């Protein structure tokens, strides 16, 4: 049985202490602590639905070792939605643009999209496609997802929203 | 007060031997002993335990759970569980008032936890097991890292919740001498329901000298600030011819002596009134049990 490792991290703005198995992925650790908007789709980094922000960078939490996250900061779609107006707007845009069907990929898509916009991503459909290219969606055909991110990028460019 | 959760913060210690326990008591401040917990845990929930930084669990100390019979009497380890005492046939035949008192306490699932020593150390004026031990002339064995001392049970209590125990001392055993001669004992209790705390409890232990009362000891619970040992009234009965009128007079005398209070369980008036018949009945019962006519 793996060793237990105690890690302190900030999850969605809250200081938490998790006790995790040495080998456990960040995705598993979050889900065990009821952060369920981080979905488990493949657990090998193929689908991107577990995407979170780790110290501001989008990462696949299934490919991230939880034990190594001691002292780091994690934001998930749900937490960002509460605290970050940009993500909240992007979430709305997903609803407006019909970017959500079954919704299982949505949290990861939004985190990837939010990370893009936060890092100055432009209203450029090709770049947006590229940024979500590691996020699998089986329902939508991606077009409306790209539309939603594009829409918000446009709003930022037009000064209606701050990144 | 919170009956769902203990709000107090404290450390838990579990010594494996008596010496270690006594060492802890001598070295640390604010230690409370956990034996059965049936009083301590309730008090912690009531938040009436102000001075406690440590809970010392003495259930790892085997010698405190033992019982030993000799010709002189019985020594009961302070942490012997009430259920072990009431189901002990030898105890029942030698000290029926004690086992009757134990059986009258709380519920079985509480008596499986509670210890006899706890009933003393909690020092409640209503403690049921205390009266019989006092009336049987029992002695308490008190230990500390400084040594062991013995205190008669009747001198153990000072005030509600307060005993002669020093902060580094603990009650380790209770010695009760074997009654000699034609003896008769009675324990009676009035309560709202059968598993309740007493409104009144009474113990009588007497030795019959033909038609006269020889030695006699009486005690009452729930009528004063501490378990009440009726030393003078008892002494006044010794040598007297037993009769129904003596029993009733004694009832009147005890009732007259008492200065009880009103509380949630009953009233002072009720206590004084019922004491009369309780004393008379118990005296008659003990007399009959001693073989007296």
């Amino acid at each position: 049985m793996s060793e237990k490792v105690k890690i302190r991290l900030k999850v969605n703005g809250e200081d938490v202490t998790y006790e995790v198995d040495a080998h456990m992925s960040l995705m598993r650790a979050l889900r065990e602590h009821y952060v369920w908007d981080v979905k488990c789709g493949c657990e090998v980094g193929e689908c991107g639905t577990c995407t979170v922000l780790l110290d501001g960078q989008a990462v696949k939490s299934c490919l991230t070792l939880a034990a190594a996250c001691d002292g780091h900061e994690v934001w998930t779609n749900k937490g960002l939605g509460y605290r970050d107006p940009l993500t909240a707007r992007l979430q709305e845009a997903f609803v407006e643009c019909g970017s959500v069907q079954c919704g299982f990929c949505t949290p990861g898509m939004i985190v990837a999209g939010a990370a893009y916009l936060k890092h100055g991503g432009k209203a450029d459909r090709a770049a947006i496609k590229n940024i979500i290219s590691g996020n699998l969606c089986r329902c939508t055909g991606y077009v409306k997802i790209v539309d939603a991110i594009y829409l918000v990028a446009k709003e930022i460019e037009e000064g209606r929203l701050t990144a | 007060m919170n009956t769902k959760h203990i709000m107090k913060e404290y450390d838990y210690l579990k010594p494996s031997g008596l010496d270690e326990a006594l060492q802890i008591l001598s070295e640390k401040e604010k230690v409370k002993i956990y034996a059965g917990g049936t009083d301590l845990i309730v008090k912690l929930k009531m938040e009436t335990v102000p001075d406690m930084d440590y809970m010392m669990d003495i259930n790892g100390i085997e010698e405190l759970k033992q019982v030993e019979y000799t010709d002189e009497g019985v020594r009961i380890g302070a942490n012997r569980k009430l259920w072990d005492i009431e189901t002990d046939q030898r105890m029942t035949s030698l000290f029926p008032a004690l086992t009757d008192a134990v059986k009258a306490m709380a519920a079985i699932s509480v008596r499986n936890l509670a210890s006899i020593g706890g009933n003393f150390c909690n020092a409640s004026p209503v403690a049921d097991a205390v009266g019989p031990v006092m009336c049987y002339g029992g002695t308490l064995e008190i230990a500390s890292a400084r040594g062991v001392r013995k205190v008669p049970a009747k001198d153990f209590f000072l005030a509600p919740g307060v005993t002669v125990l020093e902060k580094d001392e603990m009650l380790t055993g209770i010695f009760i001498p074997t009654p000699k001669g034609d003896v008769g004992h009675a324990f009676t209790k009035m309560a709202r329901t059968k598993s309740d705390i007493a409104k009144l409890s009474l113990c009588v232990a007497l030795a019959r000298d033909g038609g006269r009362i020889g030695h006699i000891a009486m005690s009452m619970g729930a009528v004063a600030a501490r378990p009440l040992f009726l030393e003078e009234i008892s002494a006044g009965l010794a040598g007297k011819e037993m009769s129904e009128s003596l029993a009733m007079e004694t009832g009147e005398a005890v009732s007259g002596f008492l200065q009880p209070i009103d509380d949630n369980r009953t009233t002072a008036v009720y206590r004084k009134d019922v004491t009369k018949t309780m004393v008379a009945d118990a005296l008659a019962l003990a007399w009959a049990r001693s073989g007296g006519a």
Partner: protein
Amino acid sequence: MTQVSEGSYIGQNVPRSDGHAKVTGAMVYPSDVIVPGMMYGALLRSPYPHAEILSVDTTEAEKMGAVCLTYKDIEPIKYNERSVSIPAATYRDRTVLPDKARHFGEPLMAVAADTQELAYRAVRAIKVEYKVLPAVFEPEEAMKDGAPQLYDKIYLGDEEVAVHNNIGVIRNISEGDCEAGFAKADRIFQESFELGRIYHNQMETKCAVVKPEPDGSITVWATAQSIHANRQLLGRVLGMPLSRINVIKLPFGGAFGSSIQVNTVTPICAYLALKAGRPVKLVSAREEDFYSHQKYPAKFTVKMGVTNDGLITAAHVTALVDFGAHQVQPLPFLGCTAGWFASLYKYEGNIRFDGTAVYTNKTPCCAMQGYGNPQINFAIESMIDIISNEMGFSPVDLRLKNYRGVGDEFWGQGPTIRSIIKSCGVEQSLVEGRQMTDFDHRERPDTKTGDVRRGLGLARGFHCSGTGGPKEGEVIDYSSALVKINEDGSVDLLTPVTDHGGGTWDALRKICAEVLQVPLDLVGLSPAGTMQIGYDVCTHATRGVYCGGAAVYHVAMKVKEKLLEVAGRLMAEHAYNLEVVRSDGLHQGVVQVKDFPAKSMTIGDIAKQAQNMSWGTIAYTDSYRQRNCPPCFTTHFVEVEVDMRTGVITVPKVLIFGDCGNPMNPDLVKGQLVGSFNRGFGYTVFEQLPTNEATGELANKGLLVDYKTPSAMEMPPIKDVEVILCDTYEPTGPFGAKGIGEAALASVQAAISNAVYNAIGIRFHKLPLTPEAVLAAIREREAQSAGATPS
């Protein structure tokens, strides 16, 4: 409604279907609900009986990670926790959290935190500044000019009404001509009676678990006698459409009226969960539950006129009720009390009832098994005993001469709900009981001597089965059901009716099984929430089987109609030529041609064929209202022993008659009657809730150690607890059934008190008859007789 078939489950003792889950600890009660990620709630309760909140500081608690809730977070929507009356007849005086404390222990603030311990610690970190106000605890004091006022104004329906002298409700009712009735009487009797507050002491403390759902709706698990009442009130105070609130029906640990209203903790829990965005569980500690709701106390003056031949010609009752700091519908309480009074005897139609209910700085009162019935029954049935003794009537005969029985009018829940009695076991109870106890030969108290004196007493009572009347009144009463036949012949039954342990759910299953003639174990009780099933007002008023069962009966009959129609198509027969019978051999219901059983199909085959043909599911859902509220009657013959030296009353023997119509499950009916006897014994002899007027706190501080009820030890020997179910059949009930629940308690108190009178010759006008009270009365009589005949 239809007679039962041969071999029916109805009337048979069938082990309860939830028994297995209950003995193995597997049953989930609201306090057992665990939702992953849930927080735990805790309440800050008022340390004063009356105080204004000047300021609140939750900073420290929030630093600890707690979500805090105060009146500032609450929409100040005024409501009444109980919603049985139509809105226009409902007084509203409270909000989810108040800005003023009106009784000790009133919830003022709430927190939610990751652990229960943290929640409790956070509560203690909230700083509150109070302005302590003078408090008032007794209704007579409260009505005086200059007494501390709890409210200036409250609402009745949408109207704002002023409160004067703390008087919450006045209800005066009069019929016939009381003065003329009294004039006709040969003797006039007038006595006063007093019944104190008691507490339900239901096993499970009040609790709620609320889970915000991803779609913005909430799921609620709570101790609740009505899932729909909870939903509607939550919708109102949260400003949420009802379609977003799913209150799930669960068994819970005893009701007795304690959760008849929406419990105070439930909307608080919902607010916490919504603020936290996480599920929250809020479970009251026992010492909190004591301050949640209590039974209505009452003071009565009863005046009766009687002729020398034993006809009661008129009766006048005045009632004064202290209902505490909030109204949980004292208005219908007074109406009901009047109704119970009016329906016990005929009084030649001359009755008058003057009721006043008053605010005090005490815990709000709510229903507790009888809604005024045990209270007024104690007064009236003591009165009948007094009249019998004074005028030399047999207490049995006086009752037989004056009781309201078949053909008479019965007030189900007060003057607006009346129906005609169609079944009645009063005569059977009184006549058989008289013989079995040799009642006519009981000794008079003045002939008895000795330290322990035995007495035999009698009282009779009733309760309504539901609150339906021929005319739609001010009280809401209907139920719903959904029945669907599955493709293997099993049946799903959905009902909003809650079961508090009396076995209502099994009774409803039996009704469904009986109508559709399917084996009982094939009728499954589906989980139900407010989102899944139609309205039911509440499991109150002894209406579970009579009203809930009638809805199941009605819906099952519709399903049977569809079943026969479908079967007719498959079997090429007219539906009216078909019938359903249960086949225990096939373990199925079977549809067969009348008088030609060789041509038949099982219900399973029919349902499967209907599916193969794409004809649809054989199912139906509807609501149903009963148009009667038949009384279920009880009579208690109680023997007591009174210890003259200690005042202790014991009950060596009891004979109970129960008239529930055709019993669904006789053992469970008897169980309710015996359980009620235990509670009545507690009410009469043990239970009281004195208040420490210096602090406003209960003298027992809300601890069970100082709230004793009779245990197993105090019950009579098993062989001496006898229960007889009357041989009656209620024509308007499902398969002849009425209720029993609340009736079972109504007459216990007077029966014991009357027996005590028969034992020692002392009449008690005030409950409880504690050893202290009894001994004091004995001593007082001794002193009087010593004074009268100086030795």
